[in-house]
């Protein structure tokens, strides 16, 4: 073995010895250190145990003195410890009586409490367990329990301790909150139902232009691809661009929406024409919460029908307005206090006042209506909804006293309340004057008729009296001087008496003629046939003349005295001018819509054509009868005229005559 190797081995052994020595030294040192440490640790442990005990009791004190109720129960559930807060809260006191935790629990929560007590035993701790307890006084309240198991030194459970917290208030608040939440949900549901059933399209966007709410009508209007619920959350920033093709003015539509969104101000009543011809009304309502912008609501409603109706209403209104403005009748609307609300041009012209002067004024006052009670009376009628017509005297601005005819009707508001009246005014001053004149004339005429009648009587008396004297004197001449007068003188006296007779008849005739129609006609209903019989028995009726009556002779309404006079005169003529051995007189009748048509036919001398008109004139006698006065047919004609009829005749000389006359039927 070479030296070198030995050397090497020697040095190695040397190093090993050195190392072992060093190690032993280290070991020795370490073992001393360990001993020290052990010693130190033992001391420490003792100190720690002590500390632990201190801490434990300190902790117990903490629990015991906390303001919340604190309980310790054994594993049977019997309460073994409680602090004063617990005594005060639960009103039980273990210093006076034993009691168990189960006694405290409300029976509805007993099961749950037992389960959680088991859980507590298994895992050693429960946190925030809520239950309901019943106090000794019977009062009930909610408590929150935090509890843990207490173990002995061997780690075996010996008891449970817990802190109670009265959470009745919190529970009450929570319950109220729940109620409110339910109520809120209800009202939200209701609102959603209302919105979905609205007859107009609704779109609610939030501040980020996401759909918050919409309804079926809106989805339908704009061809949305889903149900309103599915639309919620969709971004609307591109919606205007997408929907613009629905509108007649797509670019205008987009621009307007951009402007509305910039302004963020309420817009009501934008009207949009769609390509399908409907008219939509759009409202925009921005929503702010305080100052913060929270979104906005779009409302679209289809007003096509309303719009058309409105347009036609407008056209009609324009039409009538122009009629009203241009008609020749004055039109005024007044309120219930007679204050002018509206006038047309014609009314201004009638009254002389301008529109400005009339508006707001009391009409009857301004126009100085001569009897204001008339206007008041008719205003009362307006309030009762009655329309009528009346006349008033007014004074125009120019001072002219005019008479107006007013046709008034009540004005109603949309609720059907009378809010005034509308009057149509017509100036009838001229007509009224004429009517007044006519009335005066009629009165004068009546007076003069009466006067005339009186006059006729006076004249006839004044003429007849001397006639009687002359007649008497002539008679006395004859009586006293018969011998001296001789036959010629007596003949002359006789002729004189004849002329006196004629004169007397004439005077009587004039009186009769003037009497016909001088009084108002007295109409009555009577039969013609008995009237004729009456006449026949009252006048001289020769044996050789027969009378034949139409079997259909009617009952008529007329002035009986006058009709009697008429028939009597015609029959008298028929008798007087009958030259036949067997005279006949026929009375005929024909009915028509407006007239009773009679005829009186005789087979007498007849009347020449040239006299047919003349015979009806007063004093026109044909001269072949010395006792004729020429008044009879004049009276006949006058009676017929009085009854708005006509008279004519047909006659052939020697064959006879027929008089035709008609009596107008009275409309009653």
């Amino acid at each position, binding site marked *: 073995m070479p030296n070198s190797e030995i050397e090497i081995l020697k040095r190695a052994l040397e190093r090993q010895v050195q190392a072992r020595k060093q190690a032993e030294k280290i070991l020795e040192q370490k073992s001393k250190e360990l001993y020290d440490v052990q010693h130190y640790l033992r001391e420490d442990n003792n100190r720690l145990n002590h500390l632990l005990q201190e801490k434990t009791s300190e902790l117990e004190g903490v629990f015991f003195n906390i303001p919340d109720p604190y309980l310790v129960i054994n594993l049977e559930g019997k309460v073994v410890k409680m602090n004063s807060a617990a005594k005060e809260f639960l009103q039980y006191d273990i210093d006076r009586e034993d009691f168990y935790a189960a006694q405290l629990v409300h029976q509805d929560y007993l099961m749950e409490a037992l389960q959680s007590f088991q859980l507590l035993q298994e895992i050693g701790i429960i946190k925030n367990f809520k239950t309901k307890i019943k106090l000794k006084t019977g009062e009930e309240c909610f408590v929150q329990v935090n509890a843990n198991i207490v173990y002995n030194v061997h780690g075996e459970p010996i008891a449970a301790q817990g802190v109670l917290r009265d959470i009745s208030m919190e529970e009450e608040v929570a319950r109220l909150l729940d109620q409110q939440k339910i109520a809120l949900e209800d009202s939200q549901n209701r609102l959603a139902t209302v919105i979905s059933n609205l007859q107009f399209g609704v779109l609610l966007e939030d501040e980020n232009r996401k759909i918050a709410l919409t309804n079926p009508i809106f989805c339908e209007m704009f061809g949305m691809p889903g149900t309103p619920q599915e639309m919620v959350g969709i971004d609307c920033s591109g919606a205007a661009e997408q929907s613009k093709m629905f509108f007649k003015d797509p670019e205008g539509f987009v621009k307007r929406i951009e402007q509305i969104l910039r302004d963020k101000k309420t817009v009501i009543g934008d009207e949009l024409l769609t390509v399908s011809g409907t008219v939509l009304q759009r409202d925009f309502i921005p929503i702010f919460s305080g100052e913060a912008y929270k979104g906005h609501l779009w409302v679209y409603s289809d007003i096509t029908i309303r719009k058309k109706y409105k347009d036609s209403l407008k056209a009609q209104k324009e039409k009538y307005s122009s009629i009203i403005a241009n008609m020749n009748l004055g039109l005024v609307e007044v309120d219930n206090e007679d204050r002018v609300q509206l006038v047309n041009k014609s009314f201004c012209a009638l009254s002389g006042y301008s529109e400005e002067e009339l508006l707001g004024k009391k009409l009857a006052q301004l126009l100085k209506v001569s009897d204001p009670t008339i206007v008041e009376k008719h205003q009362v009628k307006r309030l009762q909804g009655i329309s009528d017509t009346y006349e008033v005297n007014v004074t125009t601005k120019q001072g002219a006293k005019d008479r107006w005819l007013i046709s008034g009707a009540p004005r109603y508001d949309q609720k059907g309340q009378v809010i005034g009246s509308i009057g149509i005014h017509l100036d009838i001053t001229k007509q009224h004057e004429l009517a007044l004149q006519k009335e005066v004339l009629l009165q004068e005429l009546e007076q003069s008729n009466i006067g005339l009648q009186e006059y006729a*009587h*006076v004249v*006839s*008396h*004044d003429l*007849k*009296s001397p*006639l*009687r*004297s002359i*007649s*008497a*004197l002539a*008679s*006395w001449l004859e009586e006293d001087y018969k011998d001296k007068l001789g036959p010629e003188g007596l003949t002359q006296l006789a002729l004189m*008496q004849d002329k*006196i*007779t004629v004169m*007397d008849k004439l005077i009587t005739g004039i*009186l009769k003629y003037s009497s016909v129609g001088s009084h108002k006609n007295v109409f009555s209903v009577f039969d013609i046939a008995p009237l004729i019989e009456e006449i026949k028995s009252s006048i001289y009726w020769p044996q050789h003349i027969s009378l034949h009556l139409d079997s259909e002779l009617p009952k008529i309404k007329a002035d009986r005295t006058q009709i009697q006079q008429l028939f009597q005169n015609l029959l008298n003529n028929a008798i007087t001018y009958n030259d036949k051995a067997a005279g006949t007189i026929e009375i005929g009748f024909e009915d028509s819509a407006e007239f009773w048509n009679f005829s009186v036919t005789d087979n007498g001398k007849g009347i020449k054509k040239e006299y047919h008109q003349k015979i009806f004139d007063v004093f026109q006698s044909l001269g072949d009868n010395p006792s004729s006065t020429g008044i009879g047919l004049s009276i006949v004609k006058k009676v017929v005229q009085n009854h708005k009829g006509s008279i004519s005749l047909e006659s052939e000389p020697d064959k006879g005559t027929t008089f035709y006359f008609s009596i107008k039927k009275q409309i009653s």
Partner: protein
Amino acid sequence: MTILLIEDDHIEVLKLNRSIAKLGQEHEVVEAGNGEEALTYLGAHKLPDLLLLDLNMPKMNGLEFLRVLRNSDRLKYLPTVVLTTSVNEKDLKEAYALGVAGYLLKPLKYEDYITKIEVILAYWKHNELVKPK
């Protein structure tokens, strides 16, 4: 009988007197030219048995006279027959309303007049009349 004829026409007076004479009757005819004269007479004399009254007279006419007559306790029983020329219905009614005893139309012929007067006088001659004291 005593007859008071109230008549303004002289010929009529002659006519009545002549008629009575012709009839051979003995009646006293007193004449008054109008109502006023008649009242004066009646106030101063024994009352006549019959009044014959014309209606158309100057001053107080026949109807006015009748009214005074009816309102007088002394005169209201006097039978009065109206003698007139023409029939005016108004006058006729008023006369009867004022209580006349007859209304006679003067006929045109004198002979007819005599006949009527004869009847009237004969009638009243036989009537019992109220005689005031």
